[in-house]
Structures are given as structure tokens and as C-alpha cells.
């Protein structure tokens, strides 16, 4: 491949095509069309305020050059030389040589998703798949396998972050000859789809991880508890299981060894609480998915009262890499207490939402602004929510804080399973929390009183506040109920249901007070607290608002100030959004 390709990206704020034209000009003037081509491209992965060019096939990225440097860059590239504008924008936390120096992301779990055909076991094997199983079964004892996982420092990716190796060891230690391995694929956080993507994009990765887990703890049967709402994941997993069995990589005597292990799928009926391990076990057993008290922990008495080891999809997906490359390798990535990478599903008011996998310790700023391109439409960052309905908000002041289990907890949020919802200045904290709470209230199993009733009561109070009927003592009431829920609920669902409210009260109490005392919602999200009026001084009478009003409650004569009929207004905010003269006030 002789031809050089120049992929150019220019920030939105700058004059577009300036650099693109510069490259085209040089190529055309020098008649290099056969040797070089310039392509306008969207660049992902870092936010830059100056143009960026990536030269293929070398893959060098240059940044910070001027229009006058373009010629030199092209010349150098064609002569096999590098220019001085090299951009080192990689993630400082991925300390392994394999890490891309130009990317904040580092893919372990998602290493195959999007690259291979998930329905082809050949593709997976070609990328080194199932070698970890071969390595473990023929050259490692279960204990050394557990030691490797312990050395990796891997912690459960389901949210709580319990050390995986230790959990394995505890399960292995149990005397019972029958043990089970379960994969918790009941991903239910709103806005989270990490696990689904892994199962759809790389099902063998999960299967291989579970086989290794089975080998380590001495189990011959695994279950994948998967949401029935993931039909494609189910289909691909079924195909993958069949393919693995056919190749002797799953089932009786794996790879001809004396180790046997098989996996069955169990469909969940869509209850969020079944992500809680004891509820999940009850559901696999065919019972109502209610959590039960722990201890005994499932590692002692789980599925059908047998020692059971449960981990979520992402945790399992790390295992083959740890076995293949060693725990020490894995432990070089991440922070002191949180090792490896974390997959986040970034959604909300962000320019490039999607799945990202970053080393632990990456900051929220790097994730939201560098990788995902920042806030949509140039709006102001308000907060991100991690941990979904069990987590909390991270306000602007913590943007540069390194994300790991401990730091998130210290500021009132949790790592959670990896949902990361970005909110901008237009989001009302009270309104957002009503959403989360409604979710938790609907998904409570209803077994224990604090969770069943407490959530509903807080929701009721928030409703009251957003309707303009809030009283100052309501905040105190929320706090008392939250205290009872956090301390007296049986499982994590109830204990964490008040988290979003409590965390938003911690950082955005004035916003609550604005609703309660001022009876105002500055974002306009709480319809009962907002009214739209036309400022007659500013209105030029263009009539655009009247045209766009869905309930035709705006009337007036052309070139004279218009008027909103408050009795009909549904407070959709359309007039406010379309007015070019700031003549509509919201308040």
C-alpha cells in the first residue's frame, strides 16, 4: 500500500474545511493524487480545539499544526518521516505496552465486540480464544488459577466491587461436591447496555470466562441468567454454546481433558431485583424473585442450597485475558485499589453517546469530554449519574476525579454496573430523581417494608414538590425515610433506592429549595412550576411562536406583541425554544 491517506478533522468552532482545503491544495498542486488522498473525517476519542490529522497506514496523529505546515506534513509522510506534531493523547492509566498511545480507551472486555463475527467460533479462536481454557486445564491447578485472579486485583463489575478472586476462593473452599457457577446477565439499570453488547458481540468470551470459573471452583454446571428482553443475545449465546460443544470446548471432557463443564441459559422475566444475587438464585430455581437475607452467602449456600458463584457478564469477560496474560499484567492497569478497565454506557446529553471501555482511574472529564465529545449543543455540564437508580450524581467540581470504586463512594455515588448518564443545564434534578425513584419503586420486589413503602413515600413527596406544593419540612421527611430505607432494607435495592435523591440533595439542595420555597423550576421541566409569557418589549410580532404552538394558545397580530393564553398553555416550551429574540420568558 503506497498511498497515504490523510484523515482530517476540524473542530466545529473553527472555520470548516480550512485544513481540508489546505491538504487538497497541496496534493493537487504537487500532483500527488496517486500517492496521497485527503478525507474529511469525524474524529473520536479526544476533544481538540485545533485540527487533527491522522495519517494511514502508519496511524500517526498530528495536532497543533498550522496551515503552513501542511506541505511539510505531506512531504514527510510520503518520505516515511514523522513530523513534530505528534499527539500523545493516550490514557495515562493504561500502563501496559499494548495500550494505544493515542486513545483514552483500552479494550479488554470489549476486545472483540465489533471486530469479529459473534456467530463464528472460528473468528473467536483466531483472536486467541479458548487458549486460556487450554492453558488452565492443562497447565494450571484450580488454586493457581484462583491465585492468578487474586493477583489481578479484579473486582466484581456488577456494582459492589467484591474481590473476584476472594469470592472464588471462598466458593472453592466449600466441601460440597456439587457447586454451581452463575452468570448474572440480568442487566437492568436504565441506560445500561454493557452486558448486552458483550453477549451480542462476543458471546464466547463470556463462555470461556465461565468455563475457567467452573474449573477454578470445581463446578461442572453453569447457568447464564439472562433477560428475556435480550432475544439477540440469547440467540447468539445459544449458537455459541452449541458451537463450543461441537468443538469439544464445552461439555464433557473439555479439550480431551478430564474436566467437564456445561452451561444452560435461564431466562429472566424482566424483574430488576433479580439482578440481586439471592433473588436471582430464587428465580433460577423457579421461585418468585425475592431476595433473602445473607448470610448464608451464595458462596456457602446458593442455588439449590449448593455453593454457588455468581458474577456478572463484564467480570466473566475479564477472566480469559487475566488467565492468558497473567494477573500481574492486569494489575498494571488501573488505580491502586481498582484494577483493570471498566465499560461505561454513556448516554444522555452527550455528543457521542456510546460504549466506552477505559482503564480504572480515568476521569469523568476524559470520558465525557474527550471520548464522547462533550455536552450536546454547547450546553453546560450539570452532572453525570453513575450507578443508575442506585447511584448518585457527580457534579462539575468532581469532573477531574479519578473514577474507581472508592472515590465514587466517597462522593455519594457508586460505580454500579456502568451506566453513565450525562445531564446538562436543562435537566431538573428533582424531575430526574422522580424518574429514578419511580423506577426503583416499580422494581422493588415488595418483600420488605422499608423499601416497599419508603420508596413510594419519597416519590410521593417529590411529586408534591414538583407540583408546587412542597413544604420545607419535606426535605427532612425525605431524609428520615431515606435513613430508614438505607439502614433497614434487606437487600441492596432498597438500601440504595434513596441514593440518587440523597446525592442530589447533597449537591443541588438549592434546586430543591427553589422548587419548594420559590415555587420555581428554572429548567422548565416541572410543568406546574413554570409559565411562559411574552415580553412585549422584545416581541417583534413575527408569529413564529404562534405557528409552532401545538395547542394554538398564542395569538396576536403581525408586527405587534403576541400573547399566550395561560389557561390553554401546556408548557411544552416550544415558543421559548423557537423565539429568536428572547421575547419569551420562562419562569
Amino acid at each position, binding site marked *: 500500500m503506497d498511498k497515504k491517506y490523510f484523515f482530517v478533522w476540524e473542530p466545529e468552532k473553527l472555520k470548516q474545511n480550512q485544513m481540508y482545503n489546505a491538504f487538497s491544495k497541496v496534493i493537487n498542486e504537487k500532483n500527488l493524487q496517486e500517492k496521497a488522498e485527503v478525507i474529511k473525517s469525524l474524529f473520536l476519542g479526544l476533544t481538540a480545539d485545533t485540527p487533527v490529522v491522522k495519517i494511514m497506514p502508519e496511524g500517526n496523529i498530528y495536532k497543533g499544526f498550522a496551515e503552513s505546515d501542511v506541505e511539510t506534513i505531506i512531504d514527510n509522510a510520503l518520505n516515511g518521516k514523522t513530523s513534530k506534531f505528534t499527539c500523545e493523547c493516550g490514557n495515562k492509566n493504561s500502563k501496559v505496552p499494548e495500550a494505544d498511545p493515542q486513545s483514552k480507551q483500552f479494550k479488554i472486555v470489549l476486545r472483540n465486540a*465489533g471486530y469479529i463475527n459473534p456467530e463464528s467460533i472460528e473468528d473467536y479462536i483466531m483472536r486467541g480464544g479458548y487458549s486460556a481454557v487450554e492453558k488452565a486445564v492443562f497447565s494450571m491447578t484450580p488454586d493457581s488459577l484462583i491465585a492468578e485472579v487474586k493477583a489481578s486485583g479484579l473486582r466484581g463489575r456488577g456494582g459492589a466491587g467484591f474481590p473476584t478472586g476472594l469470592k472464588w476462593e471462598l466458593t472453592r473452599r466449600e466441601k460440597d461436591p456439587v457447586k454451581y457457577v452463575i452468570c448474572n446477565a440480568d442487566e437492568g439499570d436504565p441506560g445500561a447496555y454493557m452486558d448486552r453488547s458483550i453477549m451480542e458481540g462476543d458471546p464466547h468470551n463470556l463462555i470461556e470466562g465461565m468455563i475457567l470459573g467452573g474449573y477454578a471452583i470445581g463446578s461442572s454446571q453453569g447457568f447464564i441468567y439472562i433477560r428475556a428482553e435480550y432475544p439477540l443475545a440469547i440467540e447468539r449465546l445459544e449458537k455459541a454454546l452449541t458451537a463450543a460443544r461441537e468443538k469439544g470446548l464445552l461439555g464433557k471432557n473439555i479439550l480431551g481433558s478430564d474436566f467437564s463443564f456445561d452451561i444452560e441459559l435461564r431466562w429472566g422475566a424482566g424483574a430488576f431485583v433479580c439482578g440481586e444475587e439471592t433473588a436471582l438464585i430464587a428465580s433460577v430455581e423457579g421461585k418468585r424473585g425475592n431476595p433473602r437475607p445473607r448470610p448464608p452467602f451464595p458462596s456457602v449456600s446458593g442455588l439449590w442450597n449448593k455453593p454457588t458463584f455468581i458474577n456478572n457478564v463484564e467480570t466473566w469477560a475479564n477472566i480469559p485475558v487475566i488467565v492468558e496474560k497473567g494477573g500481574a499484567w492486569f494489575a498494571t492497569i488501573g488505580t491502586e485499589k481498582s484494577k483493570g478497565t471498566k465499560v461505561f454506557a454513556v448516554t444522555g446529553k452527550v455528543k457521542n453517546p456510546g460504549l466506552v471501555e477505559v482503564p480504572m482511574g480515568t476521569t469523568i472529564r476524559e470520558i465525557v469530554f474527550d471520548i464522547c465529545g462533550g455536552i450536546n449543543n454547547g450546553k453546560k455540564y450539570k452532572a453525570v449519574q453513575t450507578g443508575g437508580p442506585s447511584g448518585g450524581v457527580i457534579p462539575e467540581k468532581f469532573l477531574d476525579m479519578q473514577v474507581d470504586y472508592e472515590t465514587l463512594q466517597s462522593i455519594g455515588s457508586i460505580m454500579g454496573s456502568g451506566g453513565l448518564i450525562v445531564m446538562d443545564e436543562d435537566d431538573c434534578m428533582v424531575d430526574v430523581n422522580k424518574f429514578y425513584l419511580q423506577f426503583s419503586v416499580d422494581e422493588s420486589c415488595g418483600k420488605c417494608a422499608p423499601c416497599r413503602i419508603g420508596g413510594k413515600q419519597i416519590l410521593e413527596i417529590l411529586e408534591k414538590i414538583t407540583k408546587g406544593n412542597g413544604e420545607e419540612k419535606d426535605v427532612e421527611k425525605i431524609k428520615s425515610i431515606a435513613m430508614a430505607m438505607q439502614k433497614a432494607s434487606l437487600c441492596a435495592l432498597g438500601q440504595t433506592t434513596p441514593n440518587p435523591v440523597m446525592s442530589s440533595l447533597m449537591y443541588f439542595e438549592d434546586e430543591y429549595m427553589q422548587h419548594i420555597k420559590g415555587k420555581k423550576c428554572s429548567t422548565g421541566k416541572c410543568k406546574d412550576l413554570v409559565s411562559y409569557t411574552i415580553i412585549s418589549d422584545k416581541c417583534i410580532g413575527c408569529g413564529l411562536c404562534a405557528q409552532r404552538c401545538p395547542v394554538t394558545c398564542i395569538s396576536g397580530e403581525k408586527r405587534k406583541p403576541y400573547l399566550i393564553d395561560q389557561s390553554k398553555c401546556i408548557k411544552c416550551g416550544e415558543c421559548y425554544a423557537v423565539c429568536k429574540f428572547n421575547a419569551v420568558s420562562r419562569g
Partner: protein
Amino acid sequence: MAKMAKGDLEKFRKNYKKSGNGEIMISMGTCGIAAGALDVYKEMEETLKANGINNITLGKTGCLGMCFCEPNLSVKVEGMPEIFYGNVDKTMAHSIITEHVMKKHILKSNVIFMPSKDTGRNIFKAAEAK
């Protein structure tokens, strides 16, 4: 299919050869399909057939994590860098075959590059190298 035994994985990797001299991989997770990846897939399949191209593999892959530009796909044609297209519709899918694959002209729009697109390949370097 014969069951594999110890050492067979290595042998398999040595002997396995992907046919064709090009590959198009469409992200087809639930998200991609919902965004229209199935239509893109069908369009490409038909266009390839209509033009008698049979040395390009058209494949499905999982979600690459780039939700904002779905449906998306990558095109690898001999002698050209791998190009990643986002927000592909049927018209574009058609042009990718007729322009990019057949004439080796990279389309002028919807090209996306993401550094880590290549990073993912590197974890098991040893295995990949063979």
C-alpha cells in the same frame, strides 16, 4: 465437527485462512439492527451480488459502542486502510460497494476514525500475528 483436543487450537490458527480479499463488517447488535443495520446488510448483499463480487466477505459483528452513528460498518479492501463509516443508509451502503469496494474511492462523507478501533486487536498479539 470434530472435537478439539490439546494443541488443536494452535493448529487451527495456523491453518485457518479467511477466503476473499476484503471484508465488510456491519455492527449488528440490537442497537445497530434497531437503527437499520439489517436494511444496510440486505442492500450490500444485493449490490455485491448484482455486481458479481464474490471475493468480499460481508459479515455481522456486535456493537462497537458507537451508538451515535449507527448503523456503522468497517470496510477492508486490499491495498487500502480499513475505513469506518457511520450513519450508513441504504444509498450509502450502495455507494460503498460501487465506489469504495469496486473503484477504491473512499467516500467523501461519513468517515469516522476512532483510535481504539485498532487497539482492540492487540491484546492477544501472539495469537493474532499467526
